[in-house]
């Protein structure tokens, strides 16, 4: 397997696994764990196997072309820094999956959890491995989506739902900003592929759009990585199951923003704007997060704010803009993931074993779970930055960096103080976490007597803590090479010399570090006792970011509701009116700007017969419009007349196929509407209160009339202007030239339908089939209105007449009346079928084809229904319209797919002429088979619709329930 394929597979596997896990039985906890774990381990091994190439500075690319012309391809790209992050995602994923196996309760639908988790893992891999900005933004959104689903996993819990929604809204809004920023960035760089962007530093810095793009990208990253003032969603996301908090909300997803900052650091940083936008935000977040963490009473809340603070630290480092700071940022990202995830897992175990996460209620756990306590202590010490642990190393680098001068402004002077204070706070909350939970005697007995968790639940923590120790003691031998390849990838020529040793001698950073440790300890001794009484964090607690957010959301909903009330309507007429007015305006606009002129073609004269035809046709159309309200039957006949005029025009204007089809369709449509007339209410003339039409009605009708006249006039003007212009070159020439040569038919229109544009036709018959089945199912439960249930008056009169005469039976009158037509219609049946088949067979060469033939065929069946009545026909004739539709669809699709067998694209036609005895030369193109499919679908659909409607007349109708008072209609 080539590295390119491997890369594609590593990203695809989690999604496939997610899909598979979704179908596991609800209780299949172990199977789901095995599946998920296996995928994570396979991915990690796969990524690991690519390390040799990456360590040599190679960049592995896997490109699957999509829109090469727009520089948009499915690109995966493995470089030093993305290798590090991908490994982080997969290894942490494997550990969290193992942990979740024991954490999740038997009552939870665990396969669903793993399905979400795997999909998240896949999208996170997508973010770090994508080699294309748009693709990154896509996977970025997908991570937000699965974070939403995972936070809301316990969806019966209100706070889980709220937290999930808040996270989605904040990170989703950020995602949109990121996308916009990326689009701008791509425009500046001249391409969206990462290699193009990373090579265009100068173009990006000199572009006038740089500030805007930077701002948008930073908003995206800051929302995702929970930077002030967007940090508030992260603590609320703690309603998620703890494995999710450990994985998404400390180790991986919240690092996505940091990852983008690192990834684009070479091209975005290095300006004053970058420094002043990023560094202060990071610094404020670092301080606020640490401050608020001190006052948390919830274990996970403390860890969440601590995460915010550490993310702030990383962002601050990136903001400083110096290469050494970037090294420290990458290093701390890894370190933070290890110690914070293990602390979350420990918190989950404590919650699991004692039944509470409230620091005030916990205590003395050292006696019950010494191993877990030891592990948590080591991890917390790493968080506090105690020497010989990995947190210490990156913090040392951080402190060294803040001591440097970066901008020559006040910030340089403030940063060392701020960093030391924040570090002291970190020490303080770390000590509080350990001391309160494990040592102080609990104020009241614990809800449950805790004991050590199952050893395998502890294993992930042990591994992570071991990593903290190993990195902390032997940094150069453990993390060294991986860090080096990531640094070289990000910084290139700027890569600084740095030392990963534990001991750098007595220097200023060490002094600051020791000050922070001592300060934190002293602060805890002085104030630690009082912290349990804290309700909210002083000063910062007043900001109430969450409440602001909710107020904004509520205001948004209110504005939307107001707009809806202002401009929305449930009434059809105003909607159509607005639509028409907009359509008119859109059509008129070009003419207003560019003027209207008639074309130059010579005047072809007016044929008096044609003019007469439309004198009649037009009058019929107007009359139909006039009578449609009160005289439906008359309107139907008049519309039919207008249709006939259209039909004759088609013949006149060299469109025999259209004329044929129009004529046949006209017949079925008329029958269809006639069948429908039976169920419409009797229309009473409008009676206005004062015998005069109210003014509003007059105004409304006047307005509609004006719209109608303008629309008609406009269409007439436009079509006249087009018709009098000379023909321009079009694709028609191609079709005309190749219809016979390539398609084997002389009827160009038919060849276009079944060959050149056969895919359209396939879509069209699909629509037809869908409509027919929809109509059929709508009518199965049809309930006529109460006033339409009675037998129609005509039938009653006839039945009365029959009943009064002894020698007659009910129904005889109808039979007698249709005696002669009935005979003719029965005799016509074979004739019409032959005619239909004739139309079908000759369609490729002469006017006809599947559509016309299909409708002709259904007219034949229809006539039988009219002649003999529904019951009698169905006793003798088996019409299975649904089968016709199905067989037709299959025939058309398979004929098209048959081309694949011969290595041609879908719907390629094969043709030749066959010499059939008696009949003569018959065109035997595969297009004929396709047309046969069209024919069958048209027959099936038409007959299905008409029969379904006709059946209503012989059913014993039941009235619909009286329309219920529509409660709640005014809502929304």
């Amino acid at each position, binding site marked *: 397997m080539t590295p390119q394929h491997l890369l594609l597979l590593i990203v695809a596997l989690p999604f496939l696994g997610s899909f598979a896990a979704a179908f596991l039985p609800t209780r299949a906890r172990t199977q789901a764990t095995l599946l998920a774990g296996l995928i994570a381990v396979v991915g990690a091994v796969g990524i690991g196997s690519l390390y040799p190439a990456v360590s040599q500075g190679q960049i592995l690319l896997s490109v699957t072309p999509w829109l090469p012309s727009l520089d948009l391809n499915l690109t995966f790209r493995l470089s030093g820094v993305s290798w590090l992050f991908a490994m982080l995602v997969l290894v942490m994923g494997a550990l969290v999956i193992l942990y979740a196996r024991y954490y999740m309760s038997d009552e939870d639908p665990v396969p669903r959890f793993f399905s979400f988790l795997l999909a998240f893992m896949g999208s996170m891999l997508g973010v770090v491995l994508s080699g294309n900005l748009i693709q990154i933004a896509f996977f970025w959104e997908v991570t937000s989506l699965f974070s939403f689903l995972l936070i809301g996993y316990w969806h019966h819990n209100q706070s889980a739902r709220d937290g999930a929604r808040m996270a989605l809204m904040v990170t989703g809004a950020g995602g949109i900003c990121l996308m916009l920023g990326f689009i701008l960035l791509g425009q500046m760089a001249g391409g969206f592929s990462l290699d193009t962007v990373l090579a265009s530093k100068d173009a990006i810095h000199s572009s006038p759009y740089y500030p805007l793009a930077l701002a948008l990208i930073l908003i995206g990253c800051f929302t995702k990585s929970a930077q002030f003032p967007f940090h508030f969603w992260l603590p609320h996301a703690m309603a998620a199951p703890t494995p999710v908090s450990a994985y998404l909300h400390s180790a991986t997803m919240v690092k996505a923003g940091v990852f983008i900052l690192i990834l684009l650091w070479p091209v975005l940083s290095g300006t004053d704007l970058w420094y002043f936008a990023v560094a202060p935000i990071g610094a404020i977040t670092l301080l606020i997060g640490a401050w608020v963490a001190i006052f948390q009473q919830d274990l996970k809340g403390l860890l969440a704010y601590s995460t915010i603070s550490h993310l702030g630290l990383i962002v601050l480092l990136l903001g400083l803009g110096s290469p050494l700071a970037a090294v420290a940022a990458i290093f701390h990202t890894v370190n933070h993931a290890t110690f914070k995830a293990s602390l979350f897992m420990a918190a989950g175990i404590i919650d699991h074993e004692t039944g509470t996460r409230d620091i005030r209620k916990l205590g003395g756990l050292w006696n019950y779970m010494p191993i877990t306590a030891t592990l948590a202590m080591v991890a917390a010490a790493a968080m506090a930055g105690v020497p010989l642990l990995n947190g210490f190393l990156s913090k040392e680098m951080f402190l060294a960096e803040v001591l440097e001068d970066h901008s020559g402004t006040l910030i340089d002077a403030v940063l060392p103080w701020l960093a030391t204070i924040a570090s002291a706070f970190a020490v303080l909350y770390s000590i509080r976490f350990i001391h309160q939970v494990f040592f102080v005697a609990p104020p009241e007995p614990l809800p449950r007597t805790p004991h050590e968790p199952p050893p395998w639940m502890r294993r992930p923590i042990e591994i992570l803590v071991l990593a903290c120790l190993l990195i902390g003691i032997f940094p150069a031998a453990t993390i060294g090479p991986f860090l080096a390849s990531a640094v070289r990838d990000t910084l290139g020529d700027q890569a600084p010399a740095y030392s990963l040793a534990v001991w750098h001698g007595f220097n200023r950073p060490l002094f600051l570090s020791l000050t922070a440790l001592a300060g934190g300890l002293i602060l805890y001794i002085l104030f630690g006792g009082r912290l349990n009484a804290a309700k909210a964090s002083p000063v910062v607690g007043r900001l109430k970011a969450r409440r602001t957010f909710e107020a904004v959301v509520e205001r948004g909903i209110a504005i939307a509701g107001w707009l809806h009330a202002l401009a929305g309507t449930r*009434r059809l*007429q105003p909607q*159509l009116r607005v639509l*028409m007015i907009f359509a008119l305006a859109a059509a008129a606009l070009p003419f207003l700007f560019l003027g209207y002129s008639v074309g130059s073609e010579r005047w072809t004269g*007016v044929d008096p017969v*044609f*003019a007469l035809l*439309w004198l009649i*046709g037009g009058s019929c*159309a*107007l009359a*139909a*419009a006039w009578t*449609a*309200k009160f005289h439906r039957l008359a309107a139907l006949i008049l*519309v039919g007349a207008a249709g006939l005029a*259209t039909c004759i*025009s*088609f013949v*006149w*204007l*060299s*469109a025999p*196929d259209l004329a044929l089809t*129009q004529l046949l*369709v006209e017949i079925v*449509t008329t029958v*269809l*509407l006639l069948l429908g007339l039976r169920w419409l*209410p009797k*229309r009473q003339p409008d009676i206005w209160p004062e015998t005069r039409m109210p003014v509003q009605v007059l105004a409304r009708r006047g307005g509609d009339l004006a719209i109608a006249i303008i*629309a*008609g006039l406009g*269409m007439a003007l436009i*079509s*006249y202007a087009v*018709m009098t212009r000379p*023909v321009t070159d079009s694709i*028609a020439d191609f*079709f*005309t030239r190749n*219809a016979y040569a390539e398609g084997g038919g*002389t*009827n*160009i*229109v038919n060849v276009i*339908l079944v060959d050149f*544009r056969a895919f359209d036709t396939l879509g*069209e018959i699909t629509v*037809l089939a869908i409509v*027919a089945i929809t*109509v059929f199912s709508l*009518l199965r439960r049809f*309930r006529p*209105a109460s*006033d*339409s249930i009675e037998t129609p008056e005509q039938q009653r009169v006839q039945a009365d007449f029959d009943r009064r005469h002894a020698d007659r039976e009910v129904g005889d009158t109808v039979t007698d009346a249709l005696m002669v037509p009935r005979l003719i219609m029965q005799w016509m049946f074979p004739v019409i079928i032959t005619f239909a088949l004739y139309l079908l067979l000759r369609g490729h060469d*002469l*006017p006809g084809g599947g559509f016309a033939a299909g409708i002709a065929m259904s007219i034949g069946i229809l006539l039988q229904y009219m002649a003999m009545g529904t019951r009698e026909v169905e006793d003798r004739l088996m019409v299975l319209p649904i089968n016709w539709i199905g067989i037709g669809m299959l025939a058309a699709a398979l004929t098209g797919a048959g081309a694949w067998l011969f290595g041609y694209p879908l719907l390629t036609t094969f043709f030749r002429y066959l010499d059939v005895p008696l009949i003569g030369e018959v065109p035997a193109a595969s297009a004929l088979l396709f047309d046969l499919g069209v024919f069958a679908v048209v027959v099936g659909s038409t007959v299905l619709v008409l029969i379904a409607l006709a059946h209503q007349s012989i059913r014993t109708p039941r009235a619909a329930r*009286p329309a219920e008072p529509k409660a709640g209609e005014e809502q929304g």
Partner: protein
Amino acid sequence: MEIVLALAIGILTGSGVWLLLRPRTFQVIIGLALLSYAVNLFILSMGRLRVDAPPIIRKGVPVDPAAFVDPVPQALVLTAIVISFATTALMLVVLLASRGLTNTDHVDGEESQQ
């Protein structure tokens, strides 16, 4: 010829649009039918008007595209005719179902206030 067809298209459109804006479902269906005639003629007219030039090739004679009317609008209209039949059928059934459920044939499913 062009002027007649243009007027025909205009009249069909006008009557169709007027009916489309009416409150009764049957009026809307009739309006849609008229509008579809107008649109079909309009599309056909985009290929310009030709008499006695149907797009059917005679075998054995060299093909001269100039001798035939543009077949593309015709192919489009042919599918449009069938689709408009399908939509009319669907509209009719929705109309009937709505009438059954609401006891009125008003397009809004309830009589207007006035």
